[in-house]
Each structure stands twice: as structure tokens, then as C-alpha cells.
């Protein structure tokens, strides 16, 4: 090279290289692609126009090792003590097929408690929901199938929340995915270990990355308090035949979660008779028939279906009996 009329200034090159360093992205050229460059020259040598080609230079694109992990849970996962499932997505951000080793870490700094990892499962039927017995639980070392470049896999981390966890406690679980070919600082090269014998080179993610899913414990208790008041036929409160007893049952739901299918039932005591039409919920009358309202009642007792009740609310059920 004796003269370089089209050479760029070195300063411009350095700037461009710095800009280009962050330019690698997931939808890059596939590993193994051949880049072939051939120039040609046309000139007039006095006897006519001549066209000649240069040699072709060929380089093969190597395999970039990159991975991203994201939590697919929209926010902290509300759960009680017992089993819970955190959902993640692992994406091959490189340009060649790669498998990833998965590791779940339940001991994240700042946790109120640490959950127990029961397993890592892949969404075998691709429905986004963990289906026990259908979605494959990986065996150690937990390794995904080979993912094509840009492909994603939904992964479930199965955890158990200990019974010692308190209401409103939070806990994070970290899922780490690491390229099987290798990991390291960006630029680390694994000679010959890429596609078709190309090199594999670690990308910006270090070929290992993690994401965090969060658990939020909601423990909800129901506290039932029953009270009675008596009105006798003489305007007093004597417990005598003919007197009316009003029973009131207050259901207090406590905690940060909610309870489902809360049903309050009570039996009419022996030697009393239920007063038809006396059933009330929060002061409003309910019909005795088992119809569309929440209540039903007959000679044996009452039942009120409160359905799902949020923590921090309370309901009062009352009914009357007469002493036989």
C-alpha cells in the first residue's frame, strides 16, 4: 500500500467504532453466513474498454453468544404459604442456535423470607401457563433445548412459600440463564465452538443474564363473632317461651388478601323456631328461598354465601328465632 487516497481519518474511525460497539442486536446476520467481497475494475488501455475482477475475499460470520431473561409476571405475584409459580421468558439474543443452563436463586438480598425452589419447568405446550404433568420439569443441570437465534422460551420457576412467611412479606427469586457454549466478559472467544466450526464469541450480555420475579404474601383470616339479644312477650328480655332471640353473626375478614367462597351458616337451636323472613345481611332482608340472593333459610337454620370477600371488610348476618 503506497498510497491511500480514500482512507478515512483515524479519529473518525475511532468514533465510528465506539458507536458500532453497541450496534450488535438480536436480528443480526446468522452465524455461519459467508461474507464474500469482489471488486471489479474497468479501464481504457488504448485498445478498448477492459473489465477485470479482483480476487474474492471471504469471511465467515461467527456465533455471537447473547441471552436475555425477562419476568412475564405483571407485578409481584400474590400468594399465600405453599406453592407458587413465577413465569419468565428466556430469549436467544445471539445469532446462532444455543442452549442455556438455568439456575433459580431464591436467596436475593432484601428478601423478607426465602422461598424453596421446587423445580424449573418449560412451557411445553406453549400456553403461557404452568400445567403440572404437561409442562416438562427440567432435571439438573437444568438446561433448555437448543433455541434458534431470536427464539424465546417461557420458563416457570416452581417455588414453595414457607409457612413462616407473614402477611405482606415479599421475596424475590432470580432466574439466571447462561449459554452452554460458554460465558464471560464480552469478547471472550471460544475457538471453533460456534456454528459450522466458526468461533463463538461472547456478546454484550456476557452470554449469561438474569431477571427477578417477586412474591407478595397475602394471608387472610376470617373471624366470626356471634351475639344474641332477647325480647320477651312482656317487653322485657326474659328467656321464656314466646320470646324472640335475634342472633347476629359478624364475619371480619382480616389481612391483605381476600377469601373466596365464604359461606356463613348457622343452625336454629333446639327448642326454637326460625322466624320466616327474618334473615338479613348487613341490615338488608334476604328471602328464605334458595334463589338469586345470597341467603336461604328453613326450619333447620340459615346459610349466606358471601362469595369473595376482600381483607379489611366485614359483613353482618342476622336472623330471629322464637323460643318454643
Amino acid at each position: 500500500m503506497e498510497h491511500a487516497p480514500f482512507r478515512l481519518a483515524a479519529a473518525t474511525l475511532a468514533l465510528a467504532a465506539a458507536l458500532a460497539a453497541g450496534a450488535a442486536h438480536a436480528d443480526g446476520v446468522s452465524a455461519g453466513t459467508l461474507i464474500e467481497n469482489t471488486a471489479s475494475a474497468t479501464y481504457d488501455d488504448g485498445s478498448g474498454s477492459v473489465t477485470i475482477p479482483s480476487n474474492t475475499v471471504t469471511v465467515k460470520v461467527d456465533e455471537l453468544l447473547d441471552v436475555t431473561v425477562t419476568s412475564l409476571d405483571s407485578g409481584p405475584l400474590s400468594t399465600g404459604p405453599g406453592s407458587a409459580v413465577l413465569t419468565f421468558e428466556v430469549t436467544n439474543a445471539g445469532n446462532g442456535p444455543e442452549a442455556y443452563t438455568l439456575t433459580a436463586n431464591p436467596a436475593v438480598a432484601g428478601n423478607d423470607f426465602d422461598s424453596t425452589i421446587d423445580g424449573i419447568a418449560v412451557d411445553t405446550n406453549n400456553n403461557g401457563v404452568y400445567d403440572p404433568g404437561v409442562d416438562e420439569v427440567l432435571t439438573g443441570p437444568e438446561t433448555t433445548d437448543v433455541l434458534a437465534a431470536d427464539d424465546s422460551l417461557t420458563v416457570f420457576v416452581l417455588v414453595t412459600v414457607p409457612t413462616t412467611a407473614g402477611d405482606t412479606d415479599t421475596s424475590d427469586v432470580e432466574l439466571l440463564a447462561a449459554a452452554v457454549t460458554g460465558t464471560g466478559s464480552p469478547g471472550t472467544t471460544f475457538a471453533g465452538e460456534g456454528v459450522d466450526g466458526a468461533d463463538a464469541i461472547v456478546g454484550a450480555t456476557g452470554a449469561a443474564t438474569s431477571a427477578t420475579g417477586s412474591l407478595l404474601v397475602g394471608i387472610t383470616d376470617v373471624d366470626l363473632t356471634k351475639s344474641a339479644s332477647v325480647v320477651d312477650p312482656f317487653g322485657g328480655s326474659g328467656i321464656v317461651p314466646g320470646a324472640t332471640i335475634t342472633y347476629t353473626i359478624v364475619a371480619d375478614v382480616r389481612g391483605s388478601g381476600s377469601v373466596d367462597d365464604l359461606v356463613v351458616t348457622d343452625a336454629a337451636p333446639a327448642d326454637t323456631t326460625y322466624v320466616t323472613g327474618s334473615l338479613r345481611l348487613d341490615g338488608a332482608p334476604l328471602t328464605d328461598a334458595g334463589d338469586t340472593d345470597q341467603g336461604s333459610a328453613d326450619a333447620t337454620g340459615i346459610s349466606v354465601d358471601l362469595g369473595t370477600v376482600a381483607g379489611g371488610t366485614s359483613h353482618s348476618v342476622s336472623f330471629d328465632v322464637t323460643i318454643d
Partner: protein
Amino acid sequence: MDIFKFLFAPILAAAMATGPVSAQDQSVALSGDVMLEKATVGSDGSTTTELVEPTTIVPGDRLVFGTDYTNTSSETVENFVVTNPLPEAVRLAPDAPADLTVSVDGGATWGTLSGLSIPVEGETPRPAEHADVTHVRWTLATVAAGASGRVEYPAIIR
């Protein structure tokens, strides 16, 4: 050059020649090469850039494709034009010289990038971008007997 991992295709001079010129009459020799531009951050935090053999290349890397030419004859050649189609897997680097003559339509029309546009169906054409470039071209009025030189363009692996 043979220290590089390049594949050298046979020169198809006879097939490519437009005039009745045999191989031994050729006045000019061309030699292509490619280098990887690698940035290294020194211990003092400064970045230095060097051209290295492209032993390991991945998307986002910057390559420099070069062609050396030599007029091997004893006569001056005229209207010397080097044309280089860009491999599909690369795009012209954004900092390529603004006055470089390029084509964005497979070599049908030529100009500087700022003067070219890309047709958009049903709408007005949009300005051409570096990633649209399909060919680059250099033109020299003459190359004197025995003279040599080099042309090159920077590209980013898509």
C-alpha cells in the same frame, strides 16, 4: 496475504472482459482484502482502534474492504473505474465518506448518498440511507504506468 484466512476465487478474467483482450494483455492487477476494525480500551480508559485479521467476526463488527490496484503495463490507462458490490450481510458504515459514489439500486444509477432516494409505493420517495447502498464506485481519470493505489470502504456486519 496468505497468512489471512481468505478464500481466493479464481480470476474469471476471460468471462468478465468486455473487449477482445486476453489475460496477458491486462494492464492492471487488482488485489482485494478485508480487515476487522477492533477497538481496544487501554488501562487509562482511552480507546485505540486497529485493523486486525478478521479471525472472529460477529454482527455489529466493523470491516474495511480494500482493493489494491497496480498498473503493470508501460502505458497509462484511462477512465479507470473500480466497482464493488456490497455483500448482502453488510451495510455501508454511517461514517463512509460523504462524497463516495454509491448506488442504491443495484448499480443502475449512481451518485452521492445524499442525492439518492428510495421509491416508496404510493408515496413520495424517501432519502436513501447507508443501509440501502448496494454498490460503491471509485473513478480515476488516469493511472500512470507502474502506478498503484488503494480504494476501500468501511462496512458494518448486519
